[in-house]
C-alpha cells in the first residue's frame, strides 16, 4: 500500500491479516441485513396495505437509502482493513488506520499500563485476535484488530517486555 502524507517517513507498516476482511464482511453482512430489514418495515407495511397512510416517497427513500449506505460501507471494508497497520520502533509502537479520516498514533512502550488480547467467535474461526494497548489516558484508543493468533501472542509478550524495561510511572 502506498504511503499516505500523514505517515511518518521511513516506516514500513506491518499489515494485519487479509482474513480480517472476511471477518469484517461477515459482521457487516449480518448488521446490514438487520438494519435494512428494519428500515424497510414502513415500505413493506405500505406495500402490503397495512399502513396506506405512510408517504410512499419517504418509505422508499428510507429503504433504498439505508441499503445504499450499507452497501457503500461494505465496499469500503476491504480498503479500511488494508489501511490498518502497525510498526514497532525502539521506543514506541505506531498504529495507523483509516482512509477518509486517517489517524497515526504513537504509544510509547514506557507508557503502557497493560495489553489486552481479545478473541471473538468469528475471529477465532479464522485464527485471528485483537491486541489492545492501554495507557493512563482514556483517549489512547490503540487497538490492532485482525492479527494472526501467533503474532498476537508474540506482540503481547514483546510489548509487555519492552514496557517493563522502559516503565515510567504516570
Amino acid at each position, binding site marked *: 500500500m502506498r504511503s499516505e502524507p*500523514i505517515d511518518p517517513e521511513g516506516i514500513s507498516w506491518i499489515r494485519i491479516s487479509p482474513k480480517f476482511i472476511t471477518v469484517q464482511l461477515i459482521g457487516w453482512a449480518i448488521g446490514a441485513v438487520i438494519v435494512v430489514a428494519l428500515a424497510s418495515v414502513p415500505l413493506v407495511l405500505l406495500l402490503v396495505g397495512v399502513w396506506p397512510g405512510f408517504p410512499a416517497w419517504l418509505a422508499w427513500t428510507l429503504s433504498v437509502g439505508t441499503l445504499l449506505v450499507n452497501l457503500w460501507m461494505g465496499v469500503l471494508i476491504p480498503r479500511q482493513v488494508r489501511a490498518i497497520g502497525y510498526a514497532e520502533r525502539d521506543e514506541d509502537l505506531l498504529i495507523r488506520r483509516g482512509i477518509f479520516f486517517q489517524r497515526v498514533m504513537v504509544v510509547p512502550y514506557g507508557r503502557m499500563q497493560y495489553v489486552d488480547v481479545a478473541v471473538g467467535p468469528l475471529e477465532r474461526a479464522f485464527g485471528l485476535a485483537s491486541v489492545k494497548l492501554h495507557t493512563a*489516558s482514556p483517549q489512547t484508543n490503540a487497538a490492532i484488530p485482525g492479527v494472526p493468533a501467533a503474532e498476537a501472542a508474540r506482540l503481547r509478550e514483546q510489548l509487555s517486555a519492552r514496557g517493563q524495561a522502559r516503565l515510567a510511572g504516570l
Partner: protein
Amino acid sequence: MTEPLGPGPEVPASSAPTRDVPLVPDHEDRWHRVHPISPLVRGWLALAAIAYFFGRDWFESIFSGEPVWLLAEGRGFVAGAILLGVLLLLVGGFLLSWWFTRYQVTREHVRVNSGIVFRQHRQARLDRVQAIDVIQPLLGRIFGLAELKFEVADAGESAVRLAYLPLASAQQLRATILARASGAETDPEHPDEIHEAPEHPVLAITAPRVVGAALLSGSTAALVIMVLVIGTGFAVGHALDWSSSSVILSALVPGLIAVLAGYWSVFTTAYNFRAAVSPDGIRLRYGLLETRAQTVPPGRVQAVAVTQPLLWRFKDWYRIKVNVAGYGVSAENAGARTTLLPVGSREDVMQMLALVLPDPGTEDPFGVFGAGLAGKDNDGGFVTSPRRARWLSFLTWRRNGFAVTRTALLARSGRLWRSLAVVPHERTQSMALHQGPLARRLRVADLQLHTTMGPVRPVVYQMDIATARRLFDEQAARAAAARRHSLPERWLEHQPEYPGQPDQQAVGLAGQEQDEQH
C-alpha cells in the same frame, strides 16, 4: 503532638482526638476509627428527610386545626413505633458502619477496612498518591470535622475516604502521608515528629473579582439573551394583542433559576480561593459553605489548560484547569476540583503556571506563555497553521499553533474563546495525528496529545503536514527523553534535608518571591 499513642487498637477517636492520629507508622494490628459523630454528619440528610416528613404533617395540622392523620385516635402508638423503628434502623446502620470502618497508615501503605456484611479491605501505596483533599462540609465545619480524600491514579473514585476526622487530625494525617510519600528523611532525633511542610502563599482571589467573574460568565450572556427574547415576545404579543404574557413570564422562571445556579456555582467554587506552594506540592483552598483544601504533590499535574471565556476578555482574565490522574471526571463538585485558578489576571496565570511547571524550559517565559495566552501569528516562537488552512478555520488559523520549550509543549487555539494547553514532555501518554478528507486536500493535519482523564484535551490544530509530521516524530523523541529524567515518584527522596526551605525556583517564573508566612 509527639506523645506516644496509647496502646490497643480500640481507642475511640473522640477520647483523644489530637492524639489518635497515626503519627508513627502503625503496626499491622493497630487500627483507628473515624470520629464517632461522623454518621450524623454523613446521614443528616436522611434525618432531615424524616423530620420533614413527620414535621410537615404536624405543622399543617397546627394551621388547619385538623388532627394529624398519624396522631389521630388509635394511630398514635403505631406512628410512634414506625418513627422509632425507622430511626433505630438508620442510627443502628450508621453506628454499625462506623464501628466496622477502621483505618491505619503504615510506613508504606494506607489501609481501610469497611463494610458490615460485605467486608472490604483496601490498601493503597503512599507513594502512589496523586492528590489529597481535606474537605469540610457545612455541617462538618460546625462540628470542626473534616473529610480526608486520598487519590491514586484511578480516574474517578477516591482510593481512600476518611470521613470524618477532627480538622487538626485530618491536617496532621495529610502532612504525615505526604511526608512519607515524598520519601523525605525524618529528623533522626525525633523520628516521630512530622512537620507540616512550610507554605508560601502565592495568590488569593478577592471577593470583588469573584463577583466580577460571575457577572461576566456565560450566565449573564444567557440572561441578556433571555431578556431580549422575552422582551421581543412581549412586544410582539402586545402588538398582536395576544394574552400570552403570563405564559412568557412562566417560561422565564426556569431560565432565571438556571442563571442563578450558574452564578452560585461560580461564586461558591471561587470564593475565598487561595493558592500556596510547599515542598509537598500545590495547595488550593476555597469554598463558601463547603471548604476544600487540595494538595497536589509535585509532578502530579498531567496537563494544564488556560482558557478565557469571551466576556472575560474585557478584564484580561483567565481560568486554569488541570488534569490530575486522581481527580478523573467525577461529577462531584462540577469540575471545581480540577480548577487550578477559577479566575485570574495574566500575572496570576503566570504565577500558577510557574508552580505547575517550575522550569519553563525557555529564557523568555513571559514572551512565550504570554503569546500562548493572547498572541497570534508567530510571536513568542509559535508555529501557526498555514494560510491555506483559513478555509477550514477562518477565524482561528492565525492563532491555532504550537510552541515547544525544553520542558513542555504549548498548544494554542481559539480566537474568541482563547485557549492554551500545556503538556510537560514527560507527561505525554501517547499521541495521534489525525487527517480528514478536507484537511488532506489542504495538506494540514491535527496532532492530538493524550493525557489522563480530565478537562484538558490538548490538540494542535491544522498544522502544515510536513510540520505536523516533524512535530509528531520530535515530540515522541522528546517525551521519551524527558521520561528518563523525570522527577522520581517520591519527590523529596534525593534531597538531603527536611523540612527544607521551599523551592524558591518554584516562584521564579513569576519573578516574585513571597514572604514566608505561617
